[in-house]
Structure formats: structure tokens, C-alpha cells
């Protein structure tokens, strides 16, 4: 009987439990109904998903005290206790937006970030660089197609918003690269030494950059090297001007990799085919190699090493401007090496990041003259530089989008220069400390506040540089940001040729930006004002009367200047199928009284208007990419400034003709998408300055100022052909061996 009763009770309780209660409600965010919210009766299968108006409804057989949860990745989870009896239950909920990295507004004033793949604002990736016609696969050249970067053909370096090429510093994994560009002779720009594909992304800041970086008055380019490769591979490239090969080996457990490359380049053959403006007595040639390893430690750390060496040489002969000589000759031998070791690891909330780099540069320039086919004795300009950079940063997350970071940096330089009578030994240790905080107030408002302090042992001076940035989301796709910062930079050592009491050079940036980014399109307007103080002033000294090679020496910091401008950038991958294009326009108004300028002048490296257009189209039927780029830059001013009786005077001045260049390149990928292909081959044909515009970069003047010659590119129109093949290491052999 009792058994029966028990059975009855348990049966009854089941029956009871089948009686259903309806639970309904509305979920809102800022009083608007939101869809796709997961509503769950905790620890049961019961629940529902809200419709686009925020309404939900479901039935449950549960009884008593229960908890209703509301979840969605974009909102904070809400739990609501409810009591279920026989009546239907109605629950309304207001959700709060979850603060998270993906939705948080990004401070983008002054900076163009190409590394963060999560964000739609990513603008320039390694593939973008390779497929930009006229960039020759060089990061620095590709950047000249973005707003704010000047096209200056005769000197290497990034000329940002009225700043000189040395006012922008380049960093790899946080460490300063002291020799990013190859050694050069006057009038011919050095090239990027670092392989574009070595970097998975980059952040290019044309002003207002973070307190983590210093010693750059204008901008900073932060390159991030690749992590472990996805697979082992070997590759080689061949073209009439170079030959290179390399491999990457990935460890079996995918926790380490190593690789190396070797390359040789020589322009000799092309010199025979093309009509070069420059008379190379030794065609530019170079040998380079690099090696790397990357190790993931068991404790979750990541150790990376990259090392490279590079030698280059060339000789150039130009008609002499000086009376009594037929030709002026210059020969260059450059040797250098760079090593970078970095380590990062997470310890709970702390991220520890450290890197050390060493570089050695030697550039050996020989100047001579030729008269009646007899070469004079050579004057040697020998530069030896050793640089060590060390940086440690600790980063602590405060909440999902806020962080505090601090650290220190040591930057040691030891340079020796021998030029005729001049023997210089320059040593400087710049010690810096920095502290910075990212403050995310909501997904729509964030700020970055930082400060950096530096001491230079050479100058025996200290500086303190506060920096500040703010970003606010105006509407769904519109953001605005503002940045302010104080920046210091030591005088360039090449201007320190006599004793003088010098100080840091100083600049202040004010940047205001409005940006709209939507799927496949982005539009940005940026206005900036940059004020320079304490720029160095120099006088010319002529160490050798046979040469018109002038040396400048700094004597005080009384220079100053300003740059202001407006920039527009538009990129669109969406409107036209398979076409990706961008347009940038920069207006720049700048004046400076610095170096040997006798008064405040428009700098010779600053063009008032620059327009560039880049378009890329991939044609699947032909497996071919067609890339086009065009740059227009208003003619820059040029000056012939000499020092007479301790006073600088302008002997000649004028304006260059406008710069124009249309470039075209094709990439043909015959094996693309072939599932069984083991090799990926790319053929490249690129023609720079296809219209053959005769561009002029500046003028050289004779010592007395009566004769001049134009500084022109080594070649007006250049054609490059090349083939690049990479092989994923064939795994079929391994598979066969393992199964035997």
C-alpha cells in the first residue's frame, strides 16, 4: 500500500511538473528593444532568444525560486531571480553594454594601424605594400602613398608633415632600428634593408605617438615581426637585379621555428639596358643575409631573435661643377648588421615585454675628382657606428579596455667619423623612463595619458614629455580623436662637429581627426598643428677645397618652426568588385628657421600639396593583379645656402617643378588556388614612372654658386621583372615514412 502511495506521489509530482508556466518579457538597451539575447532559466534547458524588438516568450515546467539569465557577447550578463507559481511571469530587463576591446573606440589621431586584424580600421598590410605599384615592396615607399608622408626622392627616411627624414624613427618589436635604410651616397636614397614580409603588421604614427617611444620629433613607425610561421617552407626569388633564397622550418610541436635567407643584388645588367641618369662607375650591388628563431616556452613566453647583415657598394661619377675638374666621383662601401632579441610573457594580469637590439653600421665614402681622365687622390669619409638599444615594458590590464604600462629604455650610440682632418668620436647614452595609461570609460570614450622622461649623457640634459590623446565615438561608424604631445630629439650627431652647448630639440603636436569606417570603406580627415622649438642652427664648413661636399656644424639651439595642414584619406574596397583603391590628399604649410637657414623658410623637403591615388584590381580569370599608383606633389623650394663671414646667406633659391609619377605593376599567380600545387609562384612586372616624367629632386651648386646641376632620380622609367617561388615543405614524404 505504502509502495503504491509512493508511486502515486512520484507520478503525481511528475504530472504536476508538466504543467507549464509561460514566461515573457522584453529586453532593452537604452530603452530600445534588442534582439539575439539569450534568455535562459538557469540550469534548465528552458529559455528563448529575443526577437528584433527585444521580446521573448517561453514555457517551463519548473517551479519555485529560479534565476533568469540574459546573455549576449556584447552586453553584460544580467541575472534576475523569479518565482514561478501557477501564474505566467513577465520580466523586463535593461542591459548594459559590455566594455570590450573589439567595440571600444580606438585612438587613431595621427596613427594608421595595420596590424590589428580584429579591427576594420586596418589600413595597410604587407600584401597591400607588395601590391602597391611604385613601392618596390618597400614599407617606407608604400607609406608615401598615405597622407602626411612627403615624397622626397633624393634622401631615404620618412618625411612626415614637414619633418626631416630623421625625425621619424622606426622600431621593430619595440626596439629602435638604427639602420633601417641602407647606406647612401648624396643624391641617391638608400633602400629599406628589412624585408617587408618579415613584419606581420605595422602602426604608422604621423604624430602624437605613444610615450613608449621617443627621440623622434615627427613620427614613429612601429613594426611587428611575424610569429611562428604556419608551416615550413622554402622560397627563392630571381630577377635580373637580384637572386635570393631562404627557408623557414617549423618545429614538429609547432612551438619553435628557425629560418635564414641569403640574397645578392646587382644593378649592372639593368644599367646596360636602361638609359640611366646616373653614371654608375660601380653599379649598386649588395650581399645580404638574415637568420631568425622563435621559441614558445613551456610557461607561455615567446622568445624571438632576428639578425641580419648587409653589405652594399656603388660608385657614381658626375660632371664636376668646379672649374678645373671634369668629373666628381664618389664611391661607397657600406657594411652593417642588426640583431634583435625580444621576449614577452604574461604573468597573470601583467604582460612583460623586453627587447634588446644591437646594430653596427659602417659607411665608407671616397670622394675624388677626375681631370683629363686622371683621377685625383681620394678623400675618405669613414663612418663607424655602434648602437645598443634596450627596452623593458610592463603592462598591466586594469579592466577589459584599460591598462597601465611603464618601463625604461636605454639607447647607446658610439660613432666614429674620419674625414680629412676631422676625427670625431661621439658617444651618447639616452636613458628614458615612461609611464602611460589607457583609460576606457565606455565603448564610446577612451583616453591615453602618458609621460616620458629622458636623459642624454652627451647633452647632459633632461627632458620631460607629457602626451595625451582622447577618442570619442560620435555615431555608429563615426569616431573623432584628438592628440597632444611634447616630443624631444637629440641633435643629429652628423651636425655635431665642433664643441657647442646644445640641448634637445623640441616639438609639440596638436592633432584632430574625424574618421568614418564601415565595411570595406574608410574616410578620414585630419588637421594638425606642429610647433618646433630649440632646433639646431648650423654653419657650413668646407673641409676640402677640391670638393663641394659641405659639412655643417651645430652651434646653438635657437631654431624654431611650425607645420600645419589638413589631410584627407579615402579607401574603398567595396564599390567596385575586385577593386581596392585609396586616395590621399595632404595640404602642408610649414616654415622653419633651422640648420643653416638664415631666416624662416619653407623647408626644401616640404611640398604644399600632395595627392596620391593607389588602385588595385585582381582579375581572377587571368590570375593576375593589376596595380596602379599615381603621385602628384607640388614643386618643393630649393636653396643654395652658404656661410660667409660667420653668416649664412641664400645665394640661390627657387622652386622645383611639380612632381608627377604614374606607376604600374602586374602580379601573375599561375598556381593560385590549385589544390595539388606544391609551389606558389608569383611573377612580377612593374614599371615605375610609366609616362617618363623628368622629375627633379633638387639642385647642387658649385662652391662659388655660379654653376648648378639638377639632382634627378638614377633612372626616369624603370622596369622590374622578377619571379618568386615558395614551397610549403612537402609533407607527403613524411606521411609515407611514418606509415611504413
Amino acid at each position, binding site marked *: 500500500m505504502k*509502495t503504491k502511495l509512493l*508511486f502515486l506521489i512520484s507520478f503525481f509530482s511528475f504530472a504536476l511538473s508538466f504543467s507549464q508556466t509561460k514566461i515573457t518579457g522584453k529586453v532593452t538597451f537604452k530603452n530600445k528593444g534588442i534582439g539575439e539575447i539569450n534568455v535562459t532559466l538557469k540550469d534548465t534547458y528552458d*529559455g528563448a*532568444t529575443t526577437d528584433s524588438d527585444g521580446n521573448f516568450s517561453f514555457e517551463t515546467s519548473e517551479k519555485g525560486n529560479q534565476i533568469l539569465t540574459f546573455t549576449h*557577447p556584447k552586453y553584460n550578463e544580467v541575472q534576475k531571480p523569479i518565482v514561478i507559481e501557477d501564474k505566467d511571469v513577465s520580466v523586463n530587463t535593461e542591459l548594459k553594454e559590455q566594455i570590450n576591446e573589439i567595440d571600444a573606440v580606438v585612438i587613431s589621431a595621427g596613427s594608421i594601424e595595420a596590424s590589428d586584424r580584429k579591427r576594420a580600421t586596418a589600413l595597410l*598590410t604587407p600584401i597591400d605594400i607588395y601590391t602597391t605599384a611604385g613601392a618596390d615592396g618597400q614599407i617606407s615607399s608604400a607609406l608615401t602613398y598615405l597622407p602626411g608622408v612627403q615624397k622626397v626622392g633624393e634622401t631615404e627616411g620618412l618625411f612626415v608633415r614637414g619633418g626631416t627624414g630623421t625625425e621619424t624613427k622606426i622600431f621593430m618589436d619595440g626596439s629602435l632600428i638604427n639602420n633601417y635604410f641602407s647606406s647612401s651616397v648624396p643624391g641617391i636614397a638608400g633602400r629599406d634593408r628589412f624585408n617587408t614580409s618579415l613584419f606581420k603588421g605595422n602602426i604608422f604614427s604621423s604624430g602624437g605617438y605613444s610615450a613608449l617611444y621617443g627621440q623622434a620629433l615627427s613620427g614613429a613607425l612601429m613594426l611587428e615581426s611575424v610569429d611562428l610561421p604556419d608551416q615550413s617552407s622554402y622560397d627563392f626569388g630571381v630577377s635580373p637585379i637580384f637572386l635570393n633564397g631562404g627557408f623557414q622550418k617549423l618545429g614538429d610541436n609547432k612551438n619553435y621555428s628557425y629560418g635564414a635567407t641569403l640574397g645578392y643584388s646587382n644593378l649592372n645588367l639593368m644599367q646596360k639596358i636602361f638609359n640611366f641618369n646616373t653614371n654608375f662607375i660601380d653599379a649598386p650591388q649588395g650581399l645580404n643575409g638574415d637568420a631568425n628563431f622563435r621559441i614558445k616556452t613551456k610557461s607561455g613566453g615567446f622568445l624571438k631573435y632576428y639578425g641580419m647583415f648587409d653589405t652594399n657598394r656603388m660608385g657614381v661619377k658626375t660632371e664636376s661643377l668646379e672649374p678645373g675638374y671634369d668629373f666628381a666621383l664618389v664611391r661607397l662601401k657600406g657594411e652593417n648588421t642588426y640583431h634583435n632579441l625580444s621576449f614577452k610573457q604574461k604573468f597573470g594580469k601583467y604582460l612583460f615585454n623586453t627587447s634588446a637590439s644591437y646594430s653596427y653600421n659602417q659607411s665608407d665614402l671616397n670622394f675624388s675628382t677626375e681631370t683629363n681622365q686622371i683621377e685625383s687622390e681620394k678623400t675618405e669619409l669613414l663612418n663607424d657606428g655602434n648602437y645598443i638599444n634596450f627596452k623593458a615594458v610592463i603592462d598591466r590590464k586594469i579592466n577589459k579596455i584599460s591598462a597601465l604600462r611603464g618601463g625604461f629604455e636605454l639607447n647607446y650610440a658610439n660613432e666614429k667619423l674620419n674625414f680629412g682632418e676631422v676625427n670625431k668620436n661621439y658617444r651618447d647614452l639616452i636613458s628614458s623612463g615612461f609611464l602611460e595609461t589607457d583609460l576606457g570609460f565606455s565603448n564610446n570614450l577612451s583616453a591615453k595619458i602618458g609621460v616620458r622622461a629622458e636623459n642624454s649623457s652627451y647633452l647632459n640634459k633632461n627632458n620631460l614629455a607629457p602626451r595625451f590623446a582622447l577618442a570619442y565615438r560620435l555615431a555608429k561608424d563615426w569616431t573623432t580623436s584628438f592628440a597632444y604631445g611634447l616630443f624631444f630629439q637629440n641633435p643629429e650627431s652628423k651636425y655635431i662637429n665642433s664643441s657647442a652647448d646644445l640641448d634637445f630639440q623640441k616639438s609639440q603636436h596638436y592633432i584632430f581627426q574625424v574618421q568614418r569606417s564601415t*565595411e*570595406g570603406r574608410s574616410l578620414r580627415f585630419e588637421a594638425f598643428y606642429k610647433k618646433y622649438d630649440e632646433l639646431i642652427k648650423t654653419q657650413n664648413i668646407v673641409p676640402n677645397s677640391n670638393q663641394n661636399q659641405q659639412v655643417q656644424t651645430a652651434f646653438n639651439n635657437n631654431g624654431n618652426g611650425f607645420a600645419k595642414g589638413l589631410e584627407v584619406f579615402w579607401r574603398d574596397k567595396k564599390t567596385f568588385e575586385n577593386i581596392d583603391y585609396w586616395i590621399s590628399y595632404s595640404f602642408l604649410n610649414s616654415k622653419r628657421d633651422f640648420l643653416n637657414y638664415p631666416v624662416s623658410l619653407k623647408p626644401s623637403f616640404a611640398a604644399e600639396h600632395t595627392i596620391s591615388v593607389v588602385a588595385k584590381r585582381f582579375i581572377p580569370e587571368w590570375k593576375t593583379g593589376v596595380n596602379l599608383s599615381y603621385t602628384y606633389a607640388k614643386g618643393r623650394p630649393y636653396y643654395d645656402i652658404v656661410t660667409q663671414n660667420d653668416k649664412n646667406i641664400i645665394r640661390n633659391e627657387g622652386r622645383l617643378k611639380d612632381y608627377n609619377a604614374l606607376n604600374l605593376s602586374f602580379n601573375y599567380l599561375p598556381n593560385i*588556388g590549385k589544390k595539388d600545387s606544391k609551389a606558389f609562384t608569383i611573377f612580377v612586372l612593374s614599371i615605375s614612372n610609366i609616362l617618363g616624367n623628368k622629375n627633379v629632386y633638387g639642385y647642387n651648386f658649385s662652391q662659388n654658386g655660379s654653376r648648378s646641376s639638377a639632382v634627378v632620380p638614377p633612372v626616369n622609367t624603370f622596369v622590374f621583372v622578377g619571379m618568386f617561388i615558395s614551397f610549403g615543405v612537402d609533407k607527403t614524404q613524411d606521411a609515407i615514412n611514418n606509415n611504413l
Partner: protein
Amino acid sequence: MKKYILSFALACMSLLSFAQANYEKVMTEKIAKIETCKTPEDFQALANDFQRIAEKETTKWLPNYYAAFAYIQKGRVLMREGKMQELDAVADQAQKFIDAAESVEKENSEIHLLQKMVYSLKMMVNPQERYMTFGMKAQDELNKAEKFNPNNPRVTLIKAEDIYFTPEQYGGSKIKGMELFKAALEKFNSFKPKTSLEPNWGKEEAAYFIGLEKAK
């Protein structure tokens, strides 16, 4: 006394079997809904349903499997609508559930197939840039899925779709794709899932593509 114990035990068992029956009932119900889902919102709701079950049944891989599958289907619909920007987020959601399923059930052809589909979605966000990473990973996972169960008709189906939709200049082929759809259909006809809850989707899709050819 014995009777008490017996009846108590019986009551417990009935409760247990009730719970078990409930799991199967709910799962069966939800799995049946897969076929009726059309829009991203439908699939999101379905993913949420499976997530609820997964949160309760932490030792079972199937609820996680289906939650991931619903997200992937949502992603595939978004992809067809050209909303590539949303694919990353959807794929990341799917990945969470795949990881959960994988932690319970190892070396399962069906799970690796889902992993392949997630990588394919990720690749589609920017094929030119991501082909070398996610394209390769997807291929790897497809190979694993095939290795763990060479008779899995869904592996053949996804392979067929890949080849069918790849333009010929990229090594795709409508003809080869069609052959694979037919091979998949054959496999579907002889395929018996281990339990009624195990993955059994895809046959209609194969039939649909074969139907396309016949309609011509």
C-alpha cells in the same frame, strides 16, 4: 523495509530516466529545427537553445557540437549575404563550442569537419590575405575529418561544395564538384549515425545540388 528501498530506487530510476528522456526529447526537437532555420536570427536562436543544453550537460559533446554548427550556419548565411565583417565574431563564437566539444570527444570526424568550416569562414573575411593561414588550416582539418571517418558523407559534401564554388582558374570545377555531391549522396544513403542524436545533416543539401544539374 525492502519494499521502501525498492520503491525509492525505482522512483530514483524513473526520475533519472525521465531526465535522460528529457535530454533526448529536447535534443531531438532542436535538431529537427535545423532544417527549418533560414535567417541568421533563426540560427542564433537555435545556437542559444543548444548552448542552454550544453551548459547543463557538460559531459556531452553533442549540445556543444550543435551550438557550434548553428553558429557556422549563421555565418554561412551572413557570408551569402555579403556581410563579411561579421564573420569573425560568429566564427569565434563557434570556436568556443568546438573547443568545448573537443575537450569531451577526441578525434571525432564530425568535430574536425566543423573546425574546417570555421577556418573557412575565417578565410572568407579576407581570402587574399588569409588563404595561406586559414585556407591551409581548413585543408588540414578536412584531412583529419576524413582520416577519422572516411565514410563520413558530410566530409564529402563539404569537399564537394568547396570544389563546386571555387572558380575554375583556382582549381575548382563544377563537374568535379557534382561528382563529389553524388559520391556524398551515396555515402548518405548508407550512413547510419550511432545514435539518433548524432550528426545526420547534409543529405538534403547534396540532393539539392544534384537537383540543380537535373533541372538544367
